[in-house]
């Protein structure tokens, strides 16, 4: 008879011995153990995206950097989350995000409530050394209660995923590719004319920046409420079990 295989894995993260269930990601285990790995596109309760590349970690014996959000634990794995090289890469990636859009924190509705802004502070990124691109991007304020300012969008696709996976409306999508990529509602219709949008506001609340916001909010007033997400996910998981 075959030996049964173990479903509990032990590994090292930043020299710390940790235990994990085999279907946990490096990111989840790091968080359980109070080890900080920066993320932006990831949001608990939504499917992983792997696009922001901020959670890249080093794994001993693998010459590629791996995104912690989609890398599953393995027995004996040795993970480094915060080497000098990773810090430099993260900083540059963050700078690239800032350089891509038009992020003017001082006049943003999400000032003080923004994941991008607070991450810059946390990672000690006090200035952007790559040139700002200052794209000309459009604003969609056609919805009765919400608005989209593409100047502040970082294409994390949290809105796309929450709308598809949690609300089930699939109003949001990404259109175009590369540096021209941008989010759209329905088939690039004005948000206010969308036939699929339920006006639930989940996209607004998961948006890490001030790209999606409630109308009537002034600078620094757009605090995001995300409590619903783990709650809804939990309820659904229970129901399907």
């Amino acid at each position, binding site marked *: 008879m075959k030996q049964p295989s173990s479903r509990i894995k032990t590994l090292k993260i930043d020299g710390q011995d940790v235990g994990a269930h085999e279907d946990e990601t490096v990111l989840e285990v790091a968080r359980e153990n109070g080890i900080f790995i920066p993320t932006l596109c990831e949001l608990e309760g939504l499917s992983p995206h792997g696009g*922001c590349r901020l959670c890249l970690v080093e794994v001993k014996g693998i010459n590629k950097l791996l995104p912690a959000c989609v890398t599953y634990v393995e027995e004996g794995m040795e993970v480094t989350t915060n080497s000098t090289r990773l810090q430099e890469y993260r900083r540059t990636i963050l700078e690239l*995000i800032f350089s891509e859009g038009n992020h003017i924190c001082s006049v943003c509705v999400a000032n003080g409530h923004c994941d991008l802004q607070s991450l810059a502070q946390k990672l000690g990124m006090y200035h952007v050394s790559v040139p700002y691109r200052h794209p000309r991007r459009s604003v969609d304020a056609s919805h009765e209660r919400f608005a989209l300012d593409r100047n502040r969008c970082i294409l994390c696709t949290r809105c796309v995923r929450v709308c598809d996976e949690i609300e089930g409306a699939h109003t949001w999508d990404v259109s175009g590719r590369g540096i021209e990529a941008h989010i759209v509602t329905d088939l690039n219709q004005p948000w206010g004319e969308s036939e699929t949008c339920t006006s639930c506001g989940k996209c607004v609340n998961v948006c890490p920046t001030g790209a999606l916001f409630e109308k009537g909010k002034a600078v620094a007033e757009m605090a995001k409420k995300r409590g619903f997400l783990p709650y809804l996910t939990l309820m659904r998981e229970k129901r399907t079990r």
Partner: protein
Amino acid sequence: MMIEDLQKISDAERAEAQKYEHHVHVCMETACIASRSDQVKQALTEAAERAGKPCRVKGVGCMGLCSAGPLVKVEPDGTMYKGVTPEDADEIVQKLGDSPVSRLECDTNVPFFQRQVKIVLENSGEIDPERIEDYVARDGYLALYTALTTMTPSEVIAQVAKSGLRGRGGAGFSTGLKWTTVAKSPGERKFVICNADEGDPGAFMDRSVLEGDPHAILEGMTIAGYAVGASQGYIYVRAEYPLAVERLKIAIRQAKRLGVLGENICGTTFSFNVDIRLGAGAFVCGEETALIASIEGRMGQPRPRPPYPAEHGLWGYPTLINNVESYANIVPIMRKGADWFSAIGTEKSKGTKVFALTGCIENTGLIEVPMGISLREIVFDIGGGIPDGKKFKAVQTGGPSGGCIPEEHLDMPVDFESLLQIGSFMGSGGMIVMDETSNMVDVAKYFMEFCMTESCGKCVPCRVGTAQMYDLLDKLTKNEATMADLQLLERLCDVVKYTSLCGLGQGAPNPVLSTLRYFRHEYLARIQEANHEAAFLTD
């Protein structure tokens, strides 16, 4: 379909061929058709009828020397004509069996033809790609029949593994190992995909194989399906290849009718179907996970690997993805044996490689050479060197993820490891030759623009990094850049290379890195000549 049936078709086809004293092969691939080879074929057919000569005119696949098209070959004497026009038809037909038309003659006794070794292109230029009988007459579908009736799937895989074949899509992963992984991955269903989304600038190897020998791909895929336990295959081919698509459709129809594709192939319990899926013009869909997303009807964006498609592929099932040229090698390997194949090439890179030779070179076209041949032989012997007495400067391999190789490395053998070592990449087989008039900063900018516009936009380093690098290269070519800009360019190259999600981003800095490595002085010259103030001025 039994072996006797194949034999019968083959015999009938050969007997039919025997009736003719002369065989005139006209290239009917995209490049030659663009220079009116279809009209040449028509004119030759009519001329033959008028002359009443025992002559058969046949449309065939690529004969290699595309720059001299339309190409016409006369068998059995093997005379090759170049630049044939419909007006030449009568003269060619009249001279059949006599001395050739000297003004049109193309010398085949030159390295371009003599130095090639044809495995993938063995039928190209020989058979009519729109007639399965012609393929069968050259032992087509015999390998499939033999595999299905005399070998177990694991024996098939063992033979492919033993041959040492490595994936021809670029990275050179062991084909046998890939097949094993898919075969061993548990799944109720499995899929076989042929990646025909060839998109590198200057590359047309896969197109030529599909247009010239589509049954070889179908047969290779079917053998793969049998080996890994799949019953459905997809050919993901770019919509920009209408002729290839048309010929594949014809081939699939004919193969099904013959019973070598579809239900109970060759009378066995094995069933395998192949469908075509058209790409919508996104380069990134050549990346396997993006390709799978596209077949599934989703946006063509890659996802992080692992899990690899071998385990978790199309609709979540184990999926084998190989490139066109990889599949084209399967039939010869099955027919002639693993030892025969592994005797060709180098220790770690077996067999041949097809290259699309383009740019500032005398002989533009499609070549197949044994692995390990030197770049110098390819460029100066087979390629005939640089036209107009110009000096060679660099050869670019590996497409937008590849690098520019200078004169000093021309004696490097062409194999997966050597090319990586000198900062380039085998890639799918595009080979662009540049002469002394090319500026390498412009070249780097060209490839960066390609990557920028083809980036899918999913991950930050590729989406923004390629745009930033393009801006910096643009600044360099406009003579506005500073040393700080060059330093930033190098820093971004490093970040984009190591943090991007898929091969497109990871490879995007390579043209810059390789030109910086070998032609740094050209970057510095641009900076020295620069007017840094210009960048600040009002538009």
